[in-house]
């Protein structure tokens, strides 16, 4: 499997592993299989399976559209129907929140693996976050249908969507890794994540456009990494008049990357004790 002749390995306390990233690459098949397992199990176990992935964003979209667009009469982005704008924001939001949820509980859920077999631990939270991509694909289909119904035609910027999907993954992975590491040591962190997600849904511009935030608060608001992701998605998906607030986008991007860096370093610092703690 390693194809590099004989390996020579030294184990010693606190020794940084020279092969860390190479090892991760060598275990890519395990990554694929664990991700596939999580997807297969999720859709085998839940009776409504796919239906759930449709109902959840659909209902949330309806509620947000009627509350923010209807009752509060907030303006939509780029003159698109309010519901389309909400859906375009929910797409990255659900990707982010599902990844955060799955990733942060993944180590504890895979305790049996971690205490019995060696493999690069980073695989576990990343692989279980991948289930979110399946839900994401379903929500994307839903949005495509809405585009047909409301006759919204996205332009060339749609081609940049994959970049923003990567950005959403980066934004979610950092906090997910932090939470996953802490969750191994302190089990009550699992109560914090749902709260963060619930809270995040309202402080992030999911049900409304970030353009309703007063200009002087925009940069501060963008410290929430999801803001940049959602703005990016709307910029890609919605019509040509949807502006992208570039400085605030880069603030979000920077915050996401810092979080990812912190996440990976906390994870690497604690991963060697996981087997003793889970």
């Amino acid at each position, binding site marked *: *499997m*390693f194809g590099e002749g*004989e*390996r*020579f*390995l*030294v*184990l*010693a*306390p*606190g020794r940084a592993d020279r092969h860390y990233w190479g090892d991760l690459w060598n275990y890519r*098949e*395990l990554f694929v*299989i*664990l991700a596939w*397992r999580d997807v*297969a*199990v999720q859709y*085998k*176990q839940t009776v409504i399976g796919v239906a759930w992935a449709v109902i959840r964003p659909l209902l949330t979209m309806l509620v947000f559209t009627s509350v923010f667009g209807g009752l509060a009469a907030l303006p939509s982005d780029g003159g698109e129907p309010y519901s389309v704008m909400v859906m375009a924001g929910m797409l990255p939001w659900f990707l982010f929140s599902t990844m955060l949820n799955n990733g942060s509980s993944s180590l504890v859920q895979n305790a*049996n*693996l*971690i*205490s*019995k*077999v*060696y*493999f690069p631990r980073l695989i576990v939270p990343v692989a279980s976050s991948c289930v979110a991509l399946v839900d994401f694909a379903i929500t994307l289909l839903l949005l495509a249908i809405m585009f047909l119904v409301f006759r919204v035609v996205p332009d060339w910027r749609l081609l940049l969507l994959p970049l923003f999907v990567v950005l959403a993954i980066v934004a979610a992975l950092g906090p997910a890794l932090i939470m996953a590491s*802490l969750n191994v*040591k*302190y*089990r*009550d*962190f699992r109560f914090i994540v749902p709260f963060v997600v619930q809270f995040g849904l309202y402080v992030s511009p999911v049900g409304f456009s970030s353009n309703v935030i007063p200009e002087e608060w925009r940069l501060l608001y963008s410290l929430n990494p999801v803001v940049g992701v959602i703005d990016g998605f709307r910029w890609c998906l919605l019509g040509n008049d949807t502006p992208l607030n570039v400085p605030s986008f880069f603030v979000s991007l920077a915050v996401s990357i810092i979080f990812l860096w912190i996440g990976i370093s906390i994870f690497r610092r604690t991963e*060697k*004790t996981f*087997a*003793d703690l889970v």
Partner: protein
Amino acid sequence: MMVDDVVIRTRGLGKKYVIGHKAIGRVPTLRDAIACAASNFGRLTYDLLRGKPLIAGDEFEEFWALRDVDFEIKRGEVVGIIGRNGAGKSTLLKVLSRITEPSEGRVEIRGRVASLLEVGTGFHPELTGRENIFLNGAILGMSRAEIRQKFPEIVAFAEVERFLDTPVKRYSSGMYVRLAFAVAAFLEPEILIIDEVLAVGDAEFQKKSLGKMDDVAKSGKTVLFVSHNMAAIKSLCSSAIYLEDGQVAYQGRTDDALAIYLDRKTKGPPRKDIDVSQDGLKIAQAVISREEGSSEPKYVIEIDFVATCAGSLRECTVNIFSVLGTRIAIVDPRESGSLPFSYGAGQFSLRIEIDSLPFVEGDYQISLWLVTPDFTGLVESVIEFSVERSGGAREFASYSPDLRGHVELAARISII
């Protein structure tokens, strides 16, 4: 660096665990950590004001599961690792297979290591046999191409052809174990680390897996093998390491290591405070004693449990093993109607009276098969005991113990 044919070398290897005295058996939470820090801070401040010396770390105790372990293993050696429970065997395997990091010293390993500390690691009940073969293979470090190539052999070895597309949750436990072992049996690493996995399955399958192990051992791979089955160790291993209290007490020929082990094993103190499951069921004490009752003497096994939270004891089976690891006898309390037994936090005891224990003299150990909501498994060597030669009024000298097996039946005999 390394001499060419040494594939594993340890130098001053140690592994330390920190045992918290407060939250025994509980998973730590941040709330506990904060509360504990606050109370420690309060106490420390109080001590400081009173001018008492501050002693850090009195809430926690360090426990060295391994200390100053030095050994070398050469290419192609099949090494048995033996020792009492808690001697550090499993910790050693965990360190060598990179599951946990050593606390001091260093290990040098040459070659690709695969470790098998459990059969069926990562098996998912919802997935089919076929899917689980690929999953488990990948977890053990096989590539997909490798698994695909060995797939027919794995299936044939496990004898599960007809159930390949059935979720494994519908498998019988025998089928499950066979499938799990079969995947592992076709691993082809340079160094294989195995923990007590042969003690599974029915007798026939055990024989088959031992045979497979024998092939592996003869194929020139380096194997590290932990087992309580001394017969297996004796037949498979060319040399052995005897661990005692986290240190290497002997490394050398298997026969010598076994002799030292068997000699010391029977002289150990009774075991106390055996953790059963992480949620806090413990065996506080377990003893076997002979009670001279009103009429006939009888034997009493008493096992005191301590639970930190409520649960229920669904199975609690007493298995008696010979010193070589052969199963000899069983007491199955399910028949008595006293199980399942619901317990709250606190103590409870299991008492088993046995009318006679007609064992041939020698050393025995009792392991408990326990099933609680959080734990299913064998708690090994809960009690170790020796049967002395009963001096009784016997007219003839007994045959030597190895001619008499393990049990000498009481019988009334007539010849007509």
